[in-house]
């Protein structure tokens, strides 16, 4: 087992390192931090701009690779550099990472869990109303771009709150500013903020997972070993649970690692539209300001999460499929 895991982990680390190098080079080439400092009235002299750029490690007279080397050396010691305003990237990262991780976790769990359940349900009720309804619904959800979905949810929540007469679903920020109270009221407050972004992130995954899971379960329902299980007297539900679900989850591990990519992009949209101070909205701000170090920090975060999702998918496959373990 260790013999299988080691090359995968080495490969992931190699991918991580190369992707950080590539994102640093791409960010340095495409973004223009100089414009951020020059774009002031009165226009500062070039020497002053050079000085400010050098202070945040973005001095454009040194070659990109040399800058990367310098940055990487510091990064290996746990310092991701300065933001364009001179603040610490580490501090920003610490503030924002929790927000994003929470959204991604809820999205992944809700997306995969509900998607699998919905898929199994549709397959068992094949050709009947729930199946048709689910097919149409998931097709519609997958045809709505994530940012439009977020906007529609926001407008829907506005009308919903308006109908009820007071604000039940909140749609800005991840908690009410200066909200004091017991931890239960804090939790309620955070949950009411979480509903819409989580739905934005999860709905698409639920729809696509349910499609794949439906197909996998349908294949399974025709399988010999399930017929045997039924023949020896198990109820259909029990047979499916004991002998079916695990087998049908095996192909889902592949979709899990790719599905996470879509989910990550969706979380960037959700953060920006619902005003969550997470990694995604940081990225969009930083890209606009030409803040290379912050942009690279978010790329690093995305690379780490995507690779972790891939490794998790592999681990799941290992748990589910004894043939892989040999």
């Amino acid at each position, binding site marked *: 087992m260790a013999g299988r895991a080691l090359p995968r982990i080495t490969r992931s680390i190699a991918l991580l390192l190369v992707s950080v190098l590539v994102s640093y080079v791409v960010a340095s080439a495409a973004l223009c931090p100089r414009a951020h400092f020059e774009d002031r009235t009165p226009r500062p002299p070039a020497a002053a701009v050079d000085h400010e750029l050098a202070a945040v490690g973005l001095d454009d007279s040194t070659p990109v690779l040399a800058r990367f080397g310098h940055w990487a050396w510091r990064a290996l010691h746990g310092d991701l550099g300065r933001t364009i305003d001179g603040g610490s990237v580490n501090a920003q990262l610490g503030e924002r990472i929790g927000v994003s991780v929470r959204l991604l976790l809820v999205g992944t769990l809700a997306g995969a869990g509900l998607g699998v359940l919905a898929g199994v349900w549709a397959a068992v009720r094949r050709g009947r109303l729930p199946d048709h309804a689910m097919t149409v619904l998931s097709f519609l959800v997958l045809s709505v*771009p994530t940012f439009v979905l977020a*906007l529609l949810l926001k*407008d829907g929540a506005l*009308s919903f709150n308006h109908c009820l007469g007071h604000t039940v679903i909140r749609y800005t920020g991840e908690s009410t500013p200066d909200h004091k109270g017991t931890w239960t009221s804090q939790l309620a407050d955070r949950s009411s903020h979480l509903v819409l972004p989580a739905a934005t992130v999860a709905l698409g995954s639920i729809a696509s997972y349910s*499609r*794949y899971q439906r197909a996998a379960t349908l294949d399974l329902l025709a399988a010999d070993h399930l017929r045997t299980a039924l023949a020896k007297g198990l109820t259909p539900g029990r047979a499916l649970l004991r002998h079916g679900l695990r087998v049908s989850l095996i192909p889902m591990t592949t979709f899990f690692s790719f599905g996470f990519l879509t989910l990550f992009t969706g979380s960037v949209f959700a953060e920006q539209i619902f005003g969550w101070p997470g990694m995604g909205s940081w990225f969009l701000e930083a890209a606009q300001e030409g803040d290379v170090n912050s942009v690279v920090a978010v790329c690093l975060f995305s690379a780490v999460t995507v690779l972790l999702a891939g490794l998790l998918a592999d681990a799941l496959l290992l748990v589910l499929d004894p043939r892989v373990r040999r």
Partner: protein
Amino acid sequence: MLPPLPGALVGLALITLLGLYAVLGPYVSPWSPTDIDYRALSVPPGAGHWFGTNRIGQDVFAQTARGLRKSLLIGLFVALASTAFAALVGTCAGYFGGWTDRVLTFVVDLFLVVPGFLVLVMVAPALRAAGWVAYAGAFAALGWMLTARAVRATALSLRERPYVTAARHMGVRPLRIVRRHILPHMASFLITHATIATAGAVISEAGLSYFGFGVQPPDVSLGTLIADSTEVALTYPWMFFFPTGMLLCFVLAVNLVGQALRRVLDPSAAGAEVPA
């Protein structure tokens, strides 16, 4: 869901209508997208302005037509370019195997590590100045990886087919084998993919423009139109409804056609009808 044939017909009809609107809209409308009618700010749809006007008096019908045209152009270009590239990389990796395969697979994985949208946010503003082909090229460059993987897997299995081995032993050059014996086998998959990729490209372009990293004023795309009207979606619904509706109609239509194509061309994927 609609059965394949009626679904495909509805989809094709929608695509044709949207295409006609995008191409002919500007000629039919008495207003050009940049005209400003100072006497009609935020008027609802009516005889003078078919889809109403926005807050600075621009005609929504003309603007939506222009935005849709841009989106469709980018969608088509990206679908063709990314599918062609995915076919090239995937077949080479699958057919040649060995180091070619290892290097290409690593590159594919590398592109998948950082979500394409983040890279687009970085590079699109810089490429936009170089014209729409460079701008659209960025979408194509970030949308080929998953197809390439699927193509590679198919090429890997085709490589050992008797007719391919026969061709190899007869001394047919590798690239010719790829072109004549491997690629035609994947035509149906590639056609289906290209169809669905059109929707994907239109979606990402709209998303990028929505967040302000795509098309810049005075040029418009569906994304910028949606972004400009989001805040007033409930007070002046027509400004939001028409561009958003066009985007949704197009994606829905493309997915309907894509699903039908997949059912007809690729019976093995009958169960897994997952659009873009």
